[in-house]
């Protein structure tokens, strides 16, 4: 049976299977409660924004800066998203559908850039390609005086693309892996060439997968502050940051709302592409399409993979290595990097990953198995937090925690909650697609064998979606490891992590001291990336 056909049947049957009177209500209630919690940070934004006098509000919203920066932001988001697709999709195709030599290796190198925090990537790029950077130093004796500047839009796009395209790579890869290859074969027997078949058959069906990755890239770009700041490109998050610095919280809130509007627009665009989720993103086909023989293209293809790996992995790691070697001054006593920092980071990230998984499961389940738009609303809602800059989440949670749960203020609970708000969609996405691949007749079979819905779910569905859950957990884990602004604002007193340490020493211009923790960060996150890739195999 064809992939989409199967999927349709699954949806249709599942909506019926879950239709027992009480369970969906319970599930829907739980999910509604979770969604409200997830949206709670927005409450602060609204309260704060409403405190702004109308005249100032109007002035702010229509100011030239707002317009320019909005435009800048949209240009950046569009460019990064487009470039990520241009890099992520070919890499996914190469590593899934061709006879590229050392495929496993290239798969790993293509996915790994995700573990490099983009601000570290940006520093590395500036050190390497900036005026008076390492590259300029290397080239100076050759008489090359100036390099094209990497600051501004091109640099920001380049750096953000290189460190976020793996989202597209991973989701596209997943679509391709579960894509029913017979359709391509059918197309080819109908005289479509490989390229034709790709364009007319594969592409429309993996589009939702590409869109899902592009969505993550777009929202990440929208909410990122560090990279554009380092690359000296003026975007919305910088405006928010400036207002926050100036303690104009009302203005920061208004700007955050504008940012949210952009995020909603992006979500809406993605929904339209993903709406016909008949695609292979969520279904598993019967036969893999035959391998594409690269022939003469093998070398250029490997060159492409190697180039990306060099820029995204070798370069930042090399620069970190240089910092390490060059750091002469011994660290002052206040800057001792301790094993505790690593333990703290890992514990936090693991906690966030675990909680995200628990929270993602009901949302993903409802979205995958529910019928109608309403049941996938919580899934959409989960993306909102992802699009909000960490600073805003931090401010908001300080405000909310102090007022409503003072005993939790400055506790790890609030911090982990912030991570859930920010990174949940990553877990929801992977969980949802693995739930969609579980045939609902398994539940029916279990129930006809005498088990209640919950037991059936635990005994049958859970073990089958476990790999998807693990992948989601790993994604959350590695993004939490990298998260800075909310961590800085919400961590308990005296609680330092790898990234807060890096922030501290960078702030004091002890660049060399940042190298070791940054390398550890990349290493630990790299391990979690291997989990993601292993579950695909």
């Amino acid at each position: 049976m064809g992939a989409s056909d199967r999927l349709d049947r699954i949806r249709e049957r599942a909506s019926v299977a879950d239709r027992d009177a009480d369970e969906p209500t319970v599930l829907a209630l739980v999910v509604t409660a979770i969604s409200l919690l997830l949206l709670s940070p927005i409450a602060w934004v609204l309260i704060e924004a409403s405190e702004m006098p109308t005249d100032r509000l109007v002035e702010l919203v229509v100011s030239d800066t707002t317009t320019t920066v909005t435009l800048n932001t949209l240009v950046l988001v569009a460019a990064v998203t487009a470039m990520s697709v241009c890099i992520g999709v070919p890499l996914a195709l190469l590593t899934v559908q061709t006879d590229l030599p050392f495929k496993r290796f290239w798969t790993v190198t293509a996915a790994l850039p995700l573990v490099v925090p983009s601000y570290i990537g940006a520093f590395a790029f500036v050190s390497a390609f900036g005026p008076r950077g390492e590259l300029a130093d290397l080239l100076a004796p050759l008489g090359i005086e100036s390099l094209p500047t990497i600051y501004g839009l091109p640099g920001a796009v380049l750096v953000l693309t290189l460190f976020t395209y793996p989202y597209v790579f991973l989701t596209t890869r997943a679509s391709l892996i579960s894509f029913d290859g017979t359709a391509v074969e059918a197309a080819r027997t109908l005289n479509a060439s490989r390229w034709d078949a790709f364009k007319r058959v594969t592409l429309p069906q993996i589009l939702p997968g590409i869109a899902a990755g592009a969505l993550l890239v777009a929202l990440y770009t929208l909410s990122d502050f560090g990279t554009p700041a380092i690359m000296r490109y003026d975007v919305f998050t910088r405006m928010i940051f400036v207002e926050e610095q100036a303690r104009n919280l009302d203005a920061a809130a208004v700007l955050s709302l504008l940012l949210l509007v952009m995020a909603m627009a992006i979500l809406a665009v993605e929904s339209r592409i993903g709406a016909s989720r008949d695609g292979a993103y969520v279904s598993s086909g019967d036969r893999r399409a035959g391998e594409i023989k690269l022939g003469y293209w093998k070398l250029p293809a490997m060159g492409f993979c190697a180039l990306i790996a060099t820029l995204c992995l070798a370069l930042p790691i090399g620069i970190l290595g240089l910092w390490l070697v060059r750091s002469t001054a011994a660290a002052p006593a206040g800057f001792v990097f301790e094993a505790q920092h690593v333990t703290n980071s890992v514990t936090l990230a693991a906690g966030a990953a675990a909680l995200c998984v628990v929270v993602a499961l009901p949302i993903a389940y409802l979205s995958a198995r529910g019928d109608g738009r309403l049941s996938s609303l919580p899934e959409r809602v989960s993306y909102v937090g992802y699009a909000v800059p960490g600073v805003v989440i931090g401010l908001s949670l300080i405000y909310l925690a102090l007022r409503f749960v003072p005993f939790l203020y400055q506790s790890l609970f609030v911090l982990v909650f912030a991570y859930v708000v920010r990174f949940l969609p990553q877990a929801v996405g992977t969980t949802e697609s693995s739930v969609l691949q579980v045939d609902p007749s398994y539940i029916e079979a279990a129930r006809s064998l005498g088990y209640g819905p919950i037991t059936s779910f635990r005994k049958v569905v859970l073990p089958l979606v476990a790999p998807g859950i693990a992948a989601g957990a790993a994604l959350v884990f590695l993004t939490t490891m990298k998260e800075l602004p909310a961590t800085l604002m919400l961590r308990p007193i005296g609680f330092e992590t790898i990234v807060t340490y890096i922030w501290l020493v960078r702030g004091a211009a002890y660049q060399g001291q940042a190298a070791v923790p940054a390398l550890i960060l990349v290493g630990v996150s790299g391990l979690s990336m291997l989990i993601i890739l292993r579950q695909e195999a």
Partner: protein
Amino acid sequence: FGLFSNDNSNQVGVSLSDFRGSGPLVESRGQPGGTSIKDLPPLEGELTVYVGGGEGGLYLDLLKLFEQAYDGFSVNQRVEGSSSLANTIIEENDNNATRADVFMSVDAGSLGAVANAGATQSLPSEALNAVPGSFQDGDGRWVGFAGRARAIPYNTNQLSPSDIPNKVSEFPNSGVLEGTMGWAPTYGAFQSFITAMRLNRSDDAARSWLESMQNHGITEYGNEFAVSNSAADGELAAGFANHYYSLRVRSGRQNAPLDLYFTEGDAGALVNVSGLEILNGTQKGELAGNFVRHVLSSEAQEFFATRAFAYPMIEGVPPVGGLPRIDELNPPDIDLTELADVSGTVELMRDAGVL
């Protein structure tokens, strides 16, 4: 250090050399004057300090030294951006949930904001008395412990001091500075500089200065260390930055062609301070007061001078070599607490298209 070994002093586990930095800029400094920590009551108990400002990380060293000095003293600290922390403190104060005893910030604006929100307690008079009036709050709600002068770092290969006008207002008219300068407008200290310009002159003057600087051609950086570094690299001929960034660049690269120029009597010569305040909700007012006095001790001041290259706040501790003494500088006549009005500045800067 015989000076510190008189009998009635308390026993302290650290010596002056632990506080003092090293390197060429610090060589051949004499004994600092002022009150030694040995003459202060010992610090005893646990203190929670919010440390605001990225390079405030440096201050952690000082806290460590105090902990080493007294067995019974320990510090819980939280380092974060100073505005961010000010927001947090105000929020905590509004909810009667103050977590910290002392706020130590690199920027008087943040101190002022917290003070204006009514979140502070009064400081011990010994502390206030040790510091010149212009470097503390008029109402004694905060006190400076290290000065940070605005300065013009310039590349000595490209410019000589005589090329640079002695008023920032003249910069847009200077041919040699055209298209060769850099600034970091998102950085708090720069915004304080603009605030000072507004206070010293007027909003309109500040706005038109910003606009004409842009027309003159200026490169934007993320922070002022980068500005100073670029001036040393020759990427810029000159820039706007706090003075100590240049010293830090030079301490790393001894032969860097970088020097500092100070304008006169205008915002360009603003001396902002890092300061301290005791927070409203603290149960440990006495310990906090004593702590403030420790920060103003001769050892601690020596620390700021030699490690952070800041201007010490007490008489008897000179700044590191090469810097003009603080009384040789000619700062504008403004109340530093008023620097808290950053929001007006930000709006103005946005208006001028800088932000």
